[in-house]
């Protein structure tokens, strides 16, 4: 005898009931979630809005439904200029095929500008894109905490610099023998102090630079310089670091890459030092690091390619985030702050350039940056340029 649950007559109502239950669960989840949630159809028209989204944006559900999302929900950059359609996360989701996370500002119905963290994903059913879902949350409080943290870091860094200068001066004097000859054990200990104080000095410089970038007060001095010369200037120190791991560092520049560009050489040195030292740090002994400089039509491109451990796919979205360190790296290399690439991104942005990477775990990573040949450095007031397509 067939069991009741196998009875074809009872199967369909059960499936329907299950489907209904799932629908109710999904509905409850959508409605009760703390983050704002908006879905669109394939034409970008808003199809659903949860209460949190209505609260954050100040619009009622009726005011949002069937409206074209990019027009109804105004996205702004920090300087109040509207975010270009191409740069909006929901558009990027469909241009790249990937979920996109971003921080920007939304204009509420009452005109107030609120900072939001946004995540967007395409809605795909049976391989067909039916629209998108955008989740967002108000990050006003987070931003305020971040601002206070930056202020604290800036203050603390300045206060640390003064005693550190004294430590460095006196340790160098000791090392040079100004206060008497040192035995080998004393020299060894002193070198450890010098090395540690150098690291601390670098960390303070990084923190100060980050604070300047975040507050929009970084000073940029544009001069005509040779990119290759800038790289050659910082290489000797980096090669010493590479030699300790038996890593080969090469510099390859096309002829036209030797032309001059208008940029800030100190900032570029900081960027190159960060990228190459990272490449050395995250490459196993005996590996290679290649620096390739190429001139393009309107900019100059630098690639730092290593044969290192690579960045796992699941970490790649966050690689330019503050304090972020790859999970595979944390296991191998305990030192590091997770600030280097965040700083690099901020510095390149400030110079009007672009930075990106490609990576394959256990194969290696290539970091690229481009800088405009002419002066196009971005000041905090400059409008974002849409070059996504």
């Amino acid at each position, binding site marked *: 005898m067939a069991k009741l649950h196998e009875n074809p007559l009872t199967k369909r109502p059960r499936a329907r009931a299950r489907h209904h239950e799932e629908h109710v669960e999904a509905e409850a989840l959508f409605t009760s979630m703390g983050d704002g949630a908006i879905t669109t159809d394939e*034409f970008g028209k808003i199809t659903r809005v949860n209460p949190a989204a209505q609260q954050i944006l100040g619009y009622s559900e009726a005011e949002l439904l069937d409206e074209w999302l*990019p027009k109804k929900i105004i996205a702004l950059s920090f300087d109040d200029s509207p975010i270009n359609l191409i740069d909006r996360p929901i558009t990027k989701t469909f*241009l790249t095929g*990937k979920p996109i996370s971003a921080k920007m500002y939304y204009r509420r119905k009452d005109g107030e500008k609120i900072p939001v963290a946004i995540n967007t994903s395409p809605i795909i059913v049976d391989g067909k894109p039916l629209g998108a879902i955008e989740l967002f949350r108000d990050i006003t409080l987070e931003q305020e905490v971040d601002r206070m943290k930056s202020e604290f870091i800036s203050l603390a860094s300045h206060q640390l610099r003064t005693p550190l200068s004294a430590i460095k001066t006196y340790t160098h004097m000791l090392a040079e023998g100004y206060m008497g000859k040192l035995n080998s054990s004393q020299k060894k200990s002193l070198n450890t102090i010098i090395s540690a104080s150098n690291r601390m000095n670098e960390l303070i410089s990084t923190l100060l630079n980050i604070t300047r970038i975040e507050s929009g007060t970084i000073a940029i001095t544009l001069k005509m310089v040779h990119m290759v010369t800038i790289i050659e200037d910082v290489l000797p120190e980096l090669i010493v670091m590479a030699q300790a791991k038996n890593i080969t560092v090469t510099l390859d520049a096309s002829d036209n890459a030797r032309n001059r560009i208008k940029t800030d050489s100190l900032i570029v040195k900081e960027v190159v030092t960060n990228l190459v030292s990272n490449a050395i740090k995250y490459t196993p002994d005996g590996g290679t690091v290649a620096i390739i400089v190429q001139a393009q039509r309107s900019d100059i491109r630098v690639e730092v390619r290593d044969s290192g451990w690579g960045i796992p796919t699941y970490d790649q979205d966050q690689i330019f985030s503050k304090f972020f360190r790859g999970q595979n790296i944390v296991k191998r290399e305990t030192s590091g702050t997770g600030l280097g690439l965040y700083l690099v991104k901020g510095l390149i942005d400030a110079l009007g350039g672009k930075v990106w990477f490609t990576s394959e775990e256990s194969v290696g990573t290539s970091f690229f940056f481009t800088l405009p040949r002419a002066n196009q450095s971005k000041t905090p007031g400059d409008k974002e340029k849409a070059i996504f397509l």
Partner: protein
Amino acid sequence: MSSRAAHASVYDQVVLITHSYLGPAANRFIARQVTNHLHKAPGDLSPADLLNLTDWIRVAVSLLTEDSNIVEEYIAELQKLALSYEKRKR
């Protein structure tokens, strides 16, 4: 004609149609759509991919313009292209 050349021509035709709507961005836009959504090299785009590609293009372009008539007109041209390949196959 080699199959490789035939595939390239599908891609070129899609870009040609797109050029009327997106101008010089057409090539890059279509290349990205093919690579990111169909997970293929642009040169490997085949007639069988056209309808799927059209679905993705519809959503992407709908977020760049509010004018759904233009989107529909563009999509109709792509569908016409897909249909012409379908007819040839028969």
